[in-house]
């Protein structure tokens, strides 16, 4: 009885009498249901059915979207729900000497605090599990989370983060991927070196191909770090039932894997975890792995109440994944009429602090790097490097936009130097049905030339004399 009294006291002292009264109402949607429009009967007349494939069918969610009725995670509320915020390291590379959460824990309105070492397994990752849920020994980038707080309001949770004291011992950091490749560079994941993965694809004999070429062209191209910027930030709600079963509503696009990750980090059997995805407000690759969910689950368990966490826009940038910046060196040997005889592509991917989707990205960009062209002699090599920056993960295209920028800019440079029309040089070299890819795969359903000709026709591309 005494415990419950204390909990109630802390809630009361955190908020006004009037506010608390309103707080009750705020947890459940208090307004009268919004005015809605009854949907017309959707069943079409039998015998007049339109073929489904190829139909410009209305999406089932269009009407809800237009009425503002679509419920995203942040629009959901459960009785007694708390709000969580995560403390971000703010320092790119450091050892955590001490975390003192006592001042935050005793703040009125704060119902639970968790730190990294409280997780049964404090690591996750789609390929390597090298990323902590919350950093407990070492911080590897400024967006690493080090503690999580659940409180009765978002404002109190945010204020409580300030009260958490962390003593850091700064460690050497490396930010440039070419620097990070050197033997003497500070190691992001000691004792492992900074090369997270590498891959090479070889076909034919590039040395011979270059020797036979009339001209050789080289170019270096680089691309920057960008963010998905889904308009909906990452959001999740965690709640336990009386049987110790965890339900998580989350903006995750890959719920089967997320359930496996929760089972692993929380050491729970999978049948005790239910992961529900609702309609996500944009993913683009940034919401395909867990982030705050295990922390919300643990907070919920400690507080005995559902906990919702929503990333701030700032966290979207620093704490969620980004696109890999690339450094790309291309060398191409051509005949004087612009036929490609040999090409090498060397790619360095800046992977940031943890592996995340780097291995998948590496595989894709390495295969795609030579471009959609018939090349008998090709070598494509790629390396992902750890640096103490924001984690590079999955983002729409997995390396393809970066390499396409390089190989198509390079192609135009070749065309200009040889005085060949950009359309003509591409038609001369493009894949055809049955062409072999750089990995020796026989390609089917190939229509590169059709897309070139169609776009040119639509654009009104005329060859300049």
């Amino acid at each position: 009885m005494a415990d419950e009294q204390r909990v109630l006291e802390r809630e009361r002292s955190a908020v006004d009498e009037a506010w608390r009264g309103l707080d009750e109402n705020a947890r459940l949607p208090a307004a009268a249901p919004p005015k809605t429009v009854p949907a017309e009967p959707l069943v079409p007349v039998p015998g007049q059915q339109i073929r489904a494939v190829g139909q410009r069918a209305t999406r089932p969610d269009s009407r809800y979207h237009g009425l503002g009725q679509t419920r995203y995670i942040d629009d959901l509320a459960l009785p007694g729900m708390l709000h969580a915020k995560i403390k971000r390291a703010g320092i790119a590379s450091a050892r955590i000497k001490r975390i003192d959460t006592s001042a935050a824990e005793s703040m009125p309105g704060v119902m639970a605090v968790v730190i990294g070492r409280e997780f049964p397994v404090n690591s996750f990752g789609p390929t390597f599990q090298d990323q902590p849920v919350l950093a407990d020994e070492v911080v590897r980038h400024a967006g690493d989370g080090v503690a999580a707080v659940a409180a009765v309001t978002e404002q109190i949770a945010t204020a409580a983060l300030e009260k958490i004291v962390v003593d850091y011992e700064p460690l050497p950091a490396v930010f440039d991927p070419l620097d990070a490749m050197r033997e003497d560079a500070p190691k992001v994941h000691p004792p492992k070196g900074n090369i997270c993965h590498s891959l090479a694809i070889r076909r034919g004999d590039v040395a011979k191909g270059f020797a036979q070429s009339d001209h050789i062209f080289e170019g270096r191209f680089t691309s920057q770090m960008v963010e998905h910027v889904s308009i909906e930030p990452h959001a999740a709600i965690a709640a336990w039932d009386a049987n110790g079963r965890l339900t998580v509503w989350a903006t995750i696009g890959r719920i089967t894997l997320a359930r496996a990750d929760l089972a692993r980090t929380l050491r729970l059997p999978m049948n005790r975890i239910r992961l529900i995805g609702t309609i996500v407000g944009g993913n683009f690759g940034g919401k395909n792995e867990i982030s705050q969910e295990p922390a919300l689950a643990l907070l919920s368990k400690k507080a005995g109440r559902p906990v919702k966490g929503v990333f701030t826009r700032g966290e979207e940038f620093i704490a969620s994944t980004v696109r890999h910046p690339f450094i790309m060196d291309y060398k191409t040997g051509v005949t004087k009429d612009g036929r490609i005889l040999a090409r090498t592509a060397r790619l360095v991917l800046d992977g940031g602090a943890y592996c995340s989707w780097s291995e998948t990205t590496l595989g894709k960009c390495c295969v795609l790097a030579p471009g959609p062209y018939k090349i008998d002699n090709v070598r494509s090599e790629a390396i992902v490097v750890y640096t103490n920056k924001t984690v590079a993960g999955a983002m729409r295209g997995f390396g393809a936009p970066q390499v396409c920028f390089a190989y198509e800019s390079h192609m135009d440079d070749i065309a200009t130097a040889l005085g060949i029309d950009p359309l003509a040089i591409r038609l001369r070299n493009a894949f055809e049905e049955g062409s072999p890819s750089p990995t020796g795969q026989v390609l089917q359903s190939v229509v590169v030339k059709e897309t070139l000709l169609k776009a040119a026709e639509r654009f009104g591309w005329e060859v300049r004399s």
Partner: protein
Amino acid sequence: MKRRGRGMACMWYPIGFTVAANPSAAVVKMNEDGTAVVLTGTVETGQGSLAVLGQIAAEALGIATDDVHLVSADTDATPMDCGAIASRTTYVTGNAIRLAAEDAKSVLFEVAAQVLGVAASQLEARDRTIQVKGFPRCSVPIGEICKRAQITLGRPPIGSASWNPPTVALDPESGQGKPFSTYVYATQIAEVEVDDETGEVEVLRIAAAHDCGTPINPMLVEGQIEGGISMGIGFALQEEILFDGAGRQINPNLTNYIVPTALDMPEIDVDIVQNYDPTGPFGAKGVGEPSLVPTAPAILNAIRDAVGVRITSLPATAEKVLAAIKAKRGDERKQIPA
């Protein structure tokens, strides 16, 4: 002075994960009135996958798109799925749903075969009936068959299936193998106007010709291409996360990290190139990621055409373009004999 230029880029892009298994599973349940409920573990992230998957199920079952309801994204109720990633949903989850529908249909054909007095192999599902192939008058409404199956014969028509794209691992030495089951292709051509006094680049129009196999829902394919192009424009000209010397982001906000607004977008002409991939559901492949791949090089090639400078690092901000223009002018001046 404003100078115009044009540039093109073509690309190829795979569907699914690199070599690794990425299956999807699905369940199709026929209701007693011939409508259907489909269970899929995928998540609708805005691209319209639930609409497309519903259309695939409807086509497979011979009923209307509106006759299909999808239940998704619940690990308790829906079967596993590798997720809305790698442009795989139409292709992989679509195939799983198509196969699950075939599984449910096999029950319906067995029942209808008895009613019509023919062999199950002579039947097809179309126009909300089960009919003898090529003989629409010899048919029974699908609702009647579903009801009969469940209520009279005690065999509810439920079908389930999974599908995984066939691949071959890459040889560790040479990288040779079949990393993906299928690829899509596209070309985009951009016209830009560059102000050679400020370096500002305006994209005037883009023609985009994309292959996606059979377009299950052309309206949604267009939406993906238009959306992808906007991301491509941001990638080409505006977006960049900047760091200070201590590894902290300088611009983690939407005031200083610039993404395209409605005013930054050109008019876009979209063409879906006719194609059919026999390995995909009704010939479909995918389009979610390919949409943004060729945009940046098309724009950068157009900049080169307009003002003769090759920007080799993204984004091609006004500062970079102007600096390159000035450097080029400087070079040209040096060439004039004294």
